[in-house]
């Protein structure tokens, strides 16, 4: 028996043949692109497998041996391969009686209510295991599916019809892997609702944008907002420690705060915060990134979350797109989306409608959509920004009027920001960059290879691209609200040389406002369902990825009316 296959040849795992029969795209995402995501089904499945995933410490006779005919034996978790067929499988439980071998595959749940009392993907998986066993000299007549929930065994005869079904599927997997192209999502399939990868696959969304099937309604299969949220620590001198299975944050002169690892999606640190090695290690194991901002708010970088995304094809597609017309088209869409949203923000919030300004922005948004020349595009973006920020001070009214007046005198400026509004905008933009960097990393992008923003030293250009359409919607709108509702007053700022900075209390107010905004639900104009802004970052990053991977034709920026 070949326990391991030391060969360069890519062996097709039996489990992947199962997934291919279930959904070719699922097999591609998992096997070729290295994507994985858990849901209740996969976790319960692993629990059911917990015993058969531990190999039996026992000698298992080779199929070519001739053991005594009556010798019966079982072995758990047996790894077998067949180089000739290019197959590999881990057999959950191998029951042997002489040379007769029967693979047993563990499944959670109960057998389906059909004639075979088994679904095709599982039957094919057993057939692949049987083929490997036969190639290793065993005699196989049937396989068994063991349904753990009802403790029921279902016999699966390995006949010629099933073997030919399996052979076709194996050829399909091999062709798919060598094509390097991700198969299209299933159209309107009930299978997708319980698939753990549906949030990565984005089946209905992709089908809609690719004009596949007659999909007009998109099922919302992704959770509308993530359960876990960031932990922000900005109180200087705080310490983040691991205590038991939790994190404990101790700020100077304050009671320690316990935070559950399952509740946090990221640890965001401002300035001088200590994080113990034990805490960093625990966070890495949970794949929770630790993100560092400078004391002033600048996003410096992140640690943790493993050694990068396994989906290489996205990064390759990113590099391939550089210098192509596709890059130009996406860049134009990004600018058009931002300008459109700038117009919307003004139209909704200006105390007196200014048709000259909103009309000009609408026109720029329209024109920029089709601009192929990069310099022209950047020129239009700059013109739109000047138009927008010239009208911006008028948005600050009543309790925020003082801040608007200071902004009017300075205009938009940074490094250092010269007035409170600029300070808050810069602070919010740097948090938006962080969120978008995180979304870019999760989608498998190299955040430093930009499409609209040219790659620069140490600048997360792709994150800046992704954030364009959200600048007005998330950062600018939060800034306006916080001043106008009186949450930010002059006491929230202090002067540092020429610049103006938020005080620790001010930072906390802005972060809370930012978080409130990210939690808000909003109707997606293309997909027609409600999601939070934070989920939107992921969604848009994945839709950008679909364009780069040529799954859909054009990038559609997120815009509101």
């Amino acid at each position, binding site marked *: 028996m070949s326990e391991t296959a030391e060969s360069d040849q890519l062996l097709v795992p039996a489990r992947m043949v199962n997934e291919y029969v279930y959904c070719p795209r699922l097999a591609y995402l998992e096997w070729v692109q290295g994507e994985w995501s858990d849901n209740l089904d996969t976790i319960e499945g692993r629990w059911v497998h917990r015993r058969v995933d531990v190999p039996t410490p026992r000698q298992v006779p080779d199929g070519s041996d001739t053991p005594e005919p009556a010798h019966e034996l079982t072995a758990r978790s047996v790894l077998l391969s067949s180089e000739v067929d290019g197959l590999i499988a881990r057999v959950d439980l191998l029951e042997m009686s002489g040379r007769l071998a029967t693979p047993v595959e563990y499944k959670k749940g109960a057998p389906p209510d059909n004639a075979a009392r088994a679904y095709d993907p599982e039957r094919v998986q057993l057939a692949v295991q049987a083929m490997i066993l036969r190639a290793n000299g065993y005699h196989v007549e049937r396989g068994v599916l063991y349904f753990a929930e009802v403790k029921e065994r279902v016999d699966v005869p390995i006949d010629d019809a099933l073997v030919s079904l399996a052979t076709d599927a194996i050829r399909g997997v091999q062709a798919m892997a060598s094509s390097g192209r991700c198969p299209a999502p299933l159209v309107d399939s009930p299978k997708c609702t319980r698939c753990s990868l549906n949030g990565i696959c984005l089946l209905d969304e992709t089908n809609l944008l690719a004009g596949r099937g007659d999909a007009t309604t998109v099922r919302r299969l992704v959770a509308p907002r993530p359960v876990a949220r960031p932990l922000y*620590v900005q109180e200087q001198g705080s310490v983040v420690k691991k205590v038991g*299975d939790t994190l404990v944050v101790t700020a100077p002169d304050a009671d320690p705060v316990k935070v559950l690892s399952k509740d946090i999606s990221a640890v965001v640190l401002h300035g001088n915060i200590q994080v113990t090695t034990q805490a960093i290690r625990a966070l890495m194991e949970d794949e929770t990134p630790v993100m560092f901002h400078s004391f002033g708010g600048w996003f410096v970088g992140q640690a943790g979350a493993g050694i990068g995304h396994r989906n290489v094809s996205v990064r390759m597609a990113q590099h391939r797109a550089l210098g192509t017309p596709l890059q130009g088209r996406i860049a134009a869409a990004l600018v058009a989306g931002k300008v459109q949203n700038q117009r919307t923000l003004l139209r909704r919030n200006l105390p007196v409608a200014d048709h000259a300004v909103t009309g000009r922005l609408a026109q720029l948004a329209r024109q920029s959509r089709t601009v192929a020349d990069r310099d022209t595009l950047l020129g239009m973006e700059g013109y739109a920004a000047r138009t927008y920020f010239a009208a911006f001070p008028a948005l600050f009214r009543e309790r925020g009027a003082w801040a608007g007046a200071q902004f009017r005198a300075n205009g938009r400026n940074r490094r250092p920001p010269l007035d409170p509004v600029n300070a808050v905008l810069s602070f919010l933009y740097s948090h938006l960059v962080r969120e978008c960097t995180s979304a870019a990393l999760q989608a498998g992008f190299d955040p430093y290879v930009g499409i609209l923003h040219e790659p620069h030293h140490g600048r997360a250009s792709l994150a800046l691209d992704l954030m364009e359409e959200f600048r007005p919607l998330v950062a600018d709108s939060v800034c306006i609200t916080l001043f106008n509702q009186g949450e930010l007053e002059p006491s929230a700022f202090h002067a540092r040389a020429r610049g103006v900075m938020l005080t620790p209390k001010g930072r906390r107010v802005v972060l809370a406002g930012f978080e409130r905004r990210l939690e808000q639900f909003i109707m997606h104009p293309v997909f027609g369902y409600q999601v939070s802004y934070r989920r939107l970052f992921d969604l848009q990053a994945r839709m950008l990825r679909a364009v780069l991977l040529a799954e859909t034709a054009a990038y559609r920026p997120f815009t509101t009316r």
Partner: protein
Amino acid sequence: MRHRWLIAYDVSEAKRLRRMHRLLDGYGDGVQYSVFICDLTDVELQLLREQVLQVMHQAEDRVMFVDLGPMSGRAPHAVSFVGREGISLRDKPGAVII
């Protein structure tokens, strides 16, 4: 999406008791001796149950799970205390800002 769970355990051996306490402390807040309140998604509940089964002795110990309902419903108000100043349970999910 999350439900609030009241989880109480009887564990009859000191080492397992410490391990059970530490396990549940990672999932929620201890509110009485051997009683925890945990807000869990279906996935988190499954993971917790699996780990509880691994920590406990199935013949000698017993763990009780009480579903107090979804956090969007009455669950946040299902538990109250009188007497010695106790623990305040989080009722609003949201980012922690320190």
